[in-house]
């Protein structure tokens, strides 16, 4: 099922292959991929603006530059599939159809937030959309995704669990346990490593024994290495479809390493100055959005159609911003609720 062979992974070390050998998705799918990428981009930019305005309390981690990955899976996944995201989870949450308003309101700590402000930007969850949580302890969600996949397998529901994580996450123990566990139980789970080259402020290759932290480790679990251009929505969509159908067919897990780059800092207002400007420029030149837009125009999609999508996204973000800002602050009654399934938090009689 590998869209790229391992030797190719080696070759593509210089950077993602400009012309991926993928069969292009149909036009409707491509417009959907574009729409999602534009929406995610617009949302993340707005989230950043609001953070600078000090309206986003705590922290927030943006996916600017990595939207193609979330968009591809958002389009490829079945509505009842499970998403397990990280603290860098805005895009993955929105890509499953969660409306922007409640997500933005959660970032702002409002009562109309997705979790009424109790979770915050790092823990976005919307079970009704299959977003089973965003996890802020590195690696923890990988074994948890195995559990959801095990459940799907036991219930024979045909659902697939998809877990997104970063390059730096491949060095923590939970990664290793989850990969081995998923393979031996042949679980319908897809592990997606978004290799953006950096951890927080440290370059991952400087503390990792192999060049491709996920792909170079696939064989340790009897898996095929899969290395994809994460800034190419078509290539990502192709890889997503392949991995999802493999899982749904009962053929077990896959691991995809998507090569990408975070255009901004790690979190909050981090300017990301620790990164060489040339590297940043190179990757900005590979920005998935203009690239995809150009491809659609080449393919004959009328510019007006793309502009309509862009305008719609702009308006959606505006509406979401108003909705979020209009939200009330969560009240004291929320503090002691929902520790337990009975809705309360009492530990005594």
């Amino acid at each position, binding site marked *: 099922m590998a869209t790229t062979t391992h030797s190719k992974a080696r070759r593509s070390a210089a950077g993602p292959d400009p012309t991926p050998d993928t069969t292009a998705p149909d036009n409707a799918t491509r417009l959907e991929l574009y729409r999602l990428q534009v929406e995610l981009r617009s949302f993340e930019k707005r989230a950043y603006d609001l953070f600078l305005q000090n309206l986003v309390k705590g922290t927030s981690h943006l996916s600017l530059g990595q939207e193609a990955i979330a968009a591809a899976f958002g389009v490829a996944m079945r509505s009842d599939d*499970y998403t397990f995201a990280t603290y860098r989870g805005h895009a993955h949450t929105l890509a499953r159809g969660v409306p922007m308003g409640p997500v933005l309101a959660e970032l702002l700590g409002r009562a109309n937030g997705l*979790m*009424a402000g*109790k*979770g*915050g930007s790092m*823990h976005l*969850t*919307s*079970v009704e959309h299959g977003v*089973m*949580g965003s*996890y802020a*302890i590195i690696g*923890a969600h*990988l*074994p*948890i*995704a*195995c*559990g*959801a*996949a*095990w*459940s*799907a397998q*036991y*219930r024979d529901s045909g659902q697939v*669990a998809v877990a997104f994580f970063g390059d730096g996450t491949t060095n923590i*123990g*939970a990664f290793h*346990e*989850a990969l*081995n*566990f998923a393979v*031996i*139980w042949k679980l319908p789970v897809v592990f997606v490593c978004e290799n953006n080259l950096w951890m927080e402020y440290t370059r991952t290759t400087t503390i990792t024994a192999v060049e491709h932290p996920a792909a170079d480790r696939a064989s340790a679990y009897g898996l095929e290495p899969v290395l994809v251009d994460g800034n190419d929505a078509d290539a990502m969509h192709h890889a997503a479809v392949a991995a999802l159908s493999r899982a749904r067919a009962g053929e077990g897990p896959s691991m995809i390493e998507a090569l990408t780059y975070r255009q901004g800092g790690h979190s909050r207002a981090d300017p990301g100055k620790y990164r060489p400007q040339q590297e940043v420029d190179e990757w900005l030149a590979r920005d998935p959005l203009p690239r995809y837009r150009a491809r659609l125009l080449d393919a004959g999609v009328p510019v007006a159609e793309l502009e309509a999508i862009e305008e719609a996204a702009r308006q959606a973000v505006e509406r979401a911003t108003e909705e979020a800002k209009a939200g009330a602050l969560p009240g004291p009654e*929320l503090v002691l*609720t*929902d*520790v*337990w*399934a*009975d*809705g309360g*938090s*009492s*530990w*005594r*009689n």
Partner: protein
Amino acid sequence: MAELTYREAIARGIAQEMRRDRNVLLLGEDVAEAGGVFKGTVGLLDEFGPVRVRDTPISEQAILGAAMGAAMTGLVPIAEIMFSDFFAVCWDIVVNEIAKSRYMTNGQVSFPLVIRAGNGGGLRFGAQHSQSVENWAMAVPGLKVVVPSNPRDVVGLMAAAVRDPDPVIFLEQKALYSTKGEVPDGEIVDTLGSAKVLRQGGDATIVTLGTMVPRSLAAAEQLALAGVDCTVVDVRSLVPLDTRTILAAVSATGRLFTVEENPRLCGWGAELVSIATEECFFDLDGPPVRITTPHIPLPAADTLEDLAIPSVERIAATVQKAMEK
């Protein structure tokens, strides 16, 4: 009515729940083919088959991650962590993920799961296989914590734990696995958060748990001969905590003694003493006294381990001395 060992009661309790609900699954190291290293799951593979009773790798984070993910998507997993000491290698899944996710998501998910673990000392296994971690779990918001002291309670509390919609840490006392007790026939379902008064006495109240329960009862008999008549309360469930029963027993005698196997600092005994002094201060006729294992790792040699963990003699002597004052 049948006489069962504590270890047989584990399998009986699990089987009762697996028969009732096909979504109840069991996973852990050596739980299937081998029937558990403590023989607590013997016969379950045969009755329920390899799809519902599964052996796992030595990957505790994967075991509990799998249990969590399954619980949040409709199943009711019972996961075994062989020795409670091993919670330390998967504590993140327990305390940061399972315990917090319902609250963080404003109630979108819940975790009807049970995590069983062999707990406590007495088997001369040394410092890394003998710990009593009930206080580790009690200190974490979002976890329920149960510790049965006899075979009947094993079955009843197991059923209550499996049926509870929240995550329950179910600690099986290794020192009790081979102890026997009468277990009524038919379905047994207990309730979490109910302590049991096992002995009524007018002079002092001994509040205890797990392996310390039989020792406290034996000490109470010795004390009775010495003229100190004790009430003995088996806490059974640390979270939820039956403060009503416990505080009533404390107020009735005016003296509180806690007997804990866990090490000295920040144990459940400290919590109970603090609750009692804050809420029954004026009912107390003397200082509450905690009888615990000293604040040390457990030694391996039998003679040393016996000196470290509260014994019948130490319990009786400590109460006696305090009551003379």
